[in-house]
């Protein structure tokens, strides 16, 4: 029940936004802030009260929706989704704070953002394949509009490409879901379908292929990634937070929650390929990021790279690797949101995102420069910060199963260090570039409010990763057991 309320609470926000009428910007922002805080409070309540037992009946809900096809409204939380459930609520709140560059149609912006939040929260709570898909797609039109209406001058093309690619992916995926559920009963309950039901290995492979394809487009895995750059670069900062922090995880979470445990025999032949795709993501992301003149594009490609560790961790099929993948979903969201917001702040102060035109930011904007360094070092996998823990687990897990890919992934970390350090050296250190004066000084209170929680979490989870791992561990063990890993 609590889960359902949390998932659908953003609808209240949509309603309030539509009813606010001609309220001024300040009122709208404060109201949106209040609305966005509520799901986060619910999630924190769930964590502190039920964190040790997410199966509590208070958190789950299940009733028939279309009984003749075995489709039900089934929601509940487990260790696989909880971290992302939390992150969705957090990043939506931060996206509301970070919406300072959204000036026109502010009410509509927040209303659409809340619809997207509903979809995202729902994905991480759905325990039914069709319900999962419904929530999965609810995010699509809102993201399309957020980018297309409030993005920069290239927004229309970017939004359209994003939409067509991911819609194609998810349509292929749902065809797989439907075939799967129909041939198993019909039954679409994720719990009942664990292990693939009575399907033969051949049938599982035939069904797993479209599902994997659809999910990998969403991530995106590298040959399927061409929609990503435009849409990341064109989005307003606030949309970036959600777009990079949550949306790729709909894909990776689908792999962990659905593809692997529900179709173990079908996914198994694809695991080596997935490990290779992970490594390709890591290395390709690092190389292309290195070549980007634009700071935002650099962050976008760095994001592709770190998503590769998630794929590698999942492909490992063992507890360590999957644990790393599940945690990396959260840590990636934290650092990429942090970096995108900082890039937004830097662009607003200097009027440029070109790395070559920046320089000496640490001296001129100490807070922004310092946090940028923190976020970038986190992205690089610096020990002591949260990303290190999850990447390390993914690599170790991956190495156990696929030694070559594991070594290559570790090499990818080195490549990552190269472009990150190079970028830091040219932007925040070195002499200030006189051609790009910094106007309006360091980050203001609102901006600090958006970035400090993310930075703090990166540090806290880096020191106490058990805060997250303890919650996800039991569910991760089940997934690893399903696919025969240790």
């Amino acid at each position, binding site marked *: 029940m609590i889960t359902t309320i949390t998932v659908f609470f953003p609808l209240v926000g949509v309603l309030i936004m539509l009813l606010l009428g001609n309220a001024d910007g300040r009122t709208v922002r404060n109201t949106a802030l209040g609305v966005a805080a509520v799901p986060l409070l619910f999630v924190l309540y769930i964590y502190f009260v039920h964190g040790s037992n997410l199966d509590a009946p208070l958190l789950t809900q299940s009733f*028939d*929706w*279309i*009984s*003749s*096809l075995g489709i039900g409204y089934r929601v509940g939380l487990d260790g696989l989704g909880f971290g992302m459930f939390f992150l969705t609520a957090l990043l939506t709140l931060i996206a509301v704070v970070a919406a300072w560059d959204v000036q026109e*149609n502010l009410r*509509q912006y927040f209303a659409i953002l809340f619809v997207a939040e509903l979809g995202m929260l729902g994905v991480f709570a759905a325990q039914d394949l*069709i319900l999962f*898909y*419904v929530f999965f*797609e*609810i995010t*699509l*039109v809102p993201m*399309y*509009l957020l980018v*297309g*209406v409030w993005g920069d001058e290239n*927004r*229309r093309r970017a*939004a*359209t490409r994003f*939409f*067509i690619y991911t*819609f*194609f992916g998810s*349509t*292929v995926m*749902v*065809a797989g879901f*439907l*075939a799967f*559920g*129909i*041939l198993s009963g*019909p039954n679409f309950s994720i719990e009942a379908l664990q292990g693939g039901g009575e399907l033969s290995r051949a049938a599982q492979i035939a069904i797993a292929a479209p599902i994997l394809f659809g999910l990998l487009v969403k991530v995106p895995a590298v040959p399927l990634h061409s929609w990503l750059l435009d849409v990341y670069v064109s989005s307003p900062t606030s949309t970036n937070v959600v777009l990079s922090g949550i949306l790729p995880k709909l894909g990776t979470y689908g792999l962990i929650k659905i593809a692997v445990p529900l179709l173990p025999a079908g996914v198994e032949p694809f695991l080596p390929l997935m490990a290779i795709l992970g490594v390709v993501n890591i290395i390709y992301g690092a190389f292309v990021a290195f070549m980007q003149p634009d700071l935002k594009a650099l962050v976008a490609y760095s994001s592709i790279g770190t998503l590769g560790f998630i794929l590698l961790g999942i492909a490992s099929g063992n507890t360590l690797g999957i644990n790393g993948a599940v945690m990396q979903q959260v840590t990636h969201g934290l650092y990429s949101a942090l970096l995108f917001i900082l890039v937004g702040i830097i662009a607003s102060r200097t009027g440029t995102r070109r790395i070559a035109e920046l320089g000496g930011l640490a001296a001129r904007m100490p807070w922004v420069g310092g946090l940028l360094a923190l976020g970038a070092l986190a992205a690089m996998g610096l020990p002591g910060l949260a990303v290190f823990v999850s990447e390390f687990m993914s690599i170790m897990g991956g190495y156990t199963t696929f030694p070559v890919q594991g070594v290559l992934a570790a090499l990818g970390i080195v490549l990552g260090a190269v472009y990150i350090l190079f970028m830091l050296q040219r932007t925040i250190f070195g002499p200030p570039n006189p051609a790009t004066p910094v106007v309006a000084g360091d980050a203001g209170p609102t901006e600090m409010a958006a970035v400090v929680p993310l930075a703090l979490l990166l540090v806290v989870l880096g020191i106490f990763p058990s805060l997250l791992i303890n919650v996800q561990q039991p569910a991760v063990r089940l997934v690893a057991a399903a696919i025969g890993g240790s």
Partner: protein
Amino acid sequence: MEVTAGTFVALLPELVAFVFSIIVLMVGVFSPRTSGLTTGLAAFGSLATFAAAVLLLAARFEGSFFGGGYVVDDFALYFKLIIALSAFFAILGAARWSEQTGDAPEYLSLILSVALGSMLLVSMRDLFGVFVAIELATIPSYALVAFDRRRRESPEGGMKYLLTGMIASSVLLYGIVLVYGVSGSADLAQVALAFTGQLSPVALLGLVLLVSGFAFKVSAAPFHFWTPDAYQGAPTSAAAFLSVAPKAASFAILLRILLEGMPGAVETWTAVMAILAIVTMFVGNLLALRQRNVRRMLGYSSIAHSGYILVAFAALRGAGAETAVQAVLIYSAAYAVMNLGAFLVLDLVGEESKSFNGLFGTSPGIALCMTIFMAALVGIPPFSGFFGKAWVIAAGAQSGSIIAIVAVAALVINSVLSVPYYFGIIRNMFFEEATTGDIEPKGMGAAKFSVYALAVVTTLFALFVGPLAALAGASGLL
């Protein structure tokens, strides 16, 4: 053959629609043309028709009449509900338009007549009865298309529709006659006895002509040519109604003929249907991509959607049969709400895709509704169209036949193909600047109400789909 009180009960929805189509005409003669009285009466008549069908459904009224030629069952009543409700929204959508022309009563009466013919059609179990009911539904629709004499396109579209419609009717009649010749009866139960095993060439020809005749009626390719012209010419509310109600009725009766009259030839006609479906989907979508006129685009889109429904026909075998029947029923309902809505928006905004520019800024409510209709037509959940497509895909998977699965794959590809043209509208509404300082037309309260109501139903379709599926499951065609 005896006519009892039960016969009149069985015909209750049709009788109500008939009486009101007469009343509207009569009152129209005497009442001032701008009073809105006739519109109110017609709307009330369609609601009363709907209520009559609900009543029969609630009373679990079933039976066959006129010597078995006319049947009332859940299946037929289900479609009568869709038809009556579509008529209601089309009549509301017609309100302003008919005020302008002063021809309102005839127009409204024609809509009720089409509804009447369509409702009779879904209950027919005799092939000649089928033909008569189809003509009853089609002849008034020629007049509806040609009704707007102020625009050149309207009579032109009406004429095209009339000519192709006549050919379609002849083809259909020829098919019926051949089937009759082979089986010695027009009664579906008797036909079923003759259509088993290896079909004789004459029987096969009869089947193909029959299906071709229906392909005209549901605008399946390659018999679709009339559709865009007719919809572009027709007054908006007429196009909305014709794209939904008579089409749903044609699908319903085709389903009944194939399942009750030709179960022995299932291998043959599922193959025919699969080919028809694949061609129709591609033709509809590829041609829709090229359109700048939204009304024409919706015309091609309706061809594509006929293709999607035909995929369910290809899956009508083996374990997939029951799901496939449900798919046709649910798709028809889902399509009715989203397509009626999309058409009715045209009267509020305009029919060139440019006229949608910047609508999000000028009238956000209508823009939101149109977004819902477009997303629903693409098949994005939680909107109604998704459930239609999901059921079709499920039926294909269940049937396990290769050709049905190929058709399902084509459906998936086509859903993606359709994104650019539906989302072109959304793009224009949200991303473009308004080109003209459009002022919303006045006196559109009723049409606006229709649009909003249909948007709500399209959005909350997920709540109705369970009961609808239960009803569809109980329809007892199998």
